[in-house]
């Protein structure tokens, strides 16, 4: 039988570049625990890395919430990145490949979206940005 469902719900603060390593490792650890395959694990931690770094660079740091989600027979990891930064003026534009206001490649947001199963972004200029991603174990 499948082992009892793990109830993991935790918040991690991302305030400096070093925190990225901790949160990436934690996501990898939890993903490994629920039996996510190596490819999906790598995709998830890469998306985590992109979004957490975005939060750090543009949002002035924030919180990552990590949850294990079950929907029917599906099991996966949901991550919510919440910052109280300046927000994104044009979300549609930010979701385009190659668009950046910094000096990066501009692949972070659209790339992260392609790496996960579900992706939602909410941003209010002046209030902050919340990005939620979900990756199924076998998705």
């Amino acid at each position, binding site marked *: 039988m499948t082992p009892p469902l793990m109830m993991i719900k935790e918040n991690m603060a991302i305030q400096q*570049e*070093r925190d*990225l*390593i901790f949160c*990436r490792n934690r996501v*990898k650890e939890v993903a490994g625990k629920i039996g996510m395959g*190596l*490819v999906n*694990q*790598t*995709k998830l*931690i*890469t998306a985590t*890395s*992109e979004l957490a*770094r975005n939060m750090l660079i543009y949002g002035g740091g924030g919180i990552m919430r990590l949850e294990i989600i079950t929907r029917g027979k599906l099991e996966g990891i949901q991550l919510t990145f919440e910052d109280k930064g300046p927000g994104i003026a044009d979300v549609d534009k930010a979701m385009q*490949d190659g668009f950046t206001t910094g000096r*990066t*490649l501009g*692949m*972070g947001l*659209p*790339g*992260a979206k*392609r*790496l996960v199963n579900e992706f939602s972004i909410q941003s209010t200029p002046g209030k902050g940005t919340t990005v939620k991603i979900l990756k199924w174990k076998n998705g």
Partner: protein
Amino acid sequence: MERDIIDLLRSKKDQVLTLWLQAQDSDTEASSNFNTHDELQAQSSEFVDLLFGSITEHNIQDFTSWELEALTDYVSSLTISRARQGFSPRETATYIFTLKDALLKVLSEQIESDPVKLYHASIQISKFIDNIGILSFETFITGREDIISQQSDEMAELSTPVIRVWNGILAMPIIGTLDSARTQVVMENLLQGIVDTGSSIAILDISGVPAVDSLVAQHLIKTVNATRLMGAECIISGIRPEIAQTVVHLGIDLSQMITKATLESALKYAFNTLQLEVRRVQKEKVNG
């Protein structure tokens, strides 16, 4: 009212010190350390002097007051020196909190008759000593954090060796996360290695990099471009299947670079470029 308390305690300074030293002696944890008794006594005496020298009826409620700077500096340096001598944070905290016991004991003896006053005074003294305890703890943590950041700097230096695998071929294995600071070190070492050895091919092996996100990719592209400017060719090797899939989904174009799955195939490519050939030596049959 508060003024009385402090004056009262100040007049009983010697008793406080004696009680404190007694408490330290009876404390088994504290007595197991390797500080000599005299040293500890001198330290405690200095502490009590400073405490009574700087505490007033105003700043007992306001720990951030500048008048307490001498005391807080002393607590910080005390914590650091104790940490260096091998005391655990618990031992240092116990040391500070036994002072509270001594102060409260003297206080209760002096104002036995007025429980309300004793209660208020006790709370104030407790809060004050707690603040000193917190300060000591914070100092301890800050010290640790300094060590950690120092070590991570050293680690970045240590873990990026440039290896000369062949005449004209350099290899650089990267283990761990490739952040901006690390990339700088990698690039510097690699470019310097190219100059020093006169190599024309550099292999950057990323087998040990856990994930390649857009920033890592950007750093790789920069490194390759810089190597090209030096007139050398840079090959990225050690691209694992899951990394390849992730990079494609992420939408990063690495097709401008020479990439190989393994260090072995990168080396083969390098040999080819330098028109070298590795062959098994056929042993000549000795004619009898």
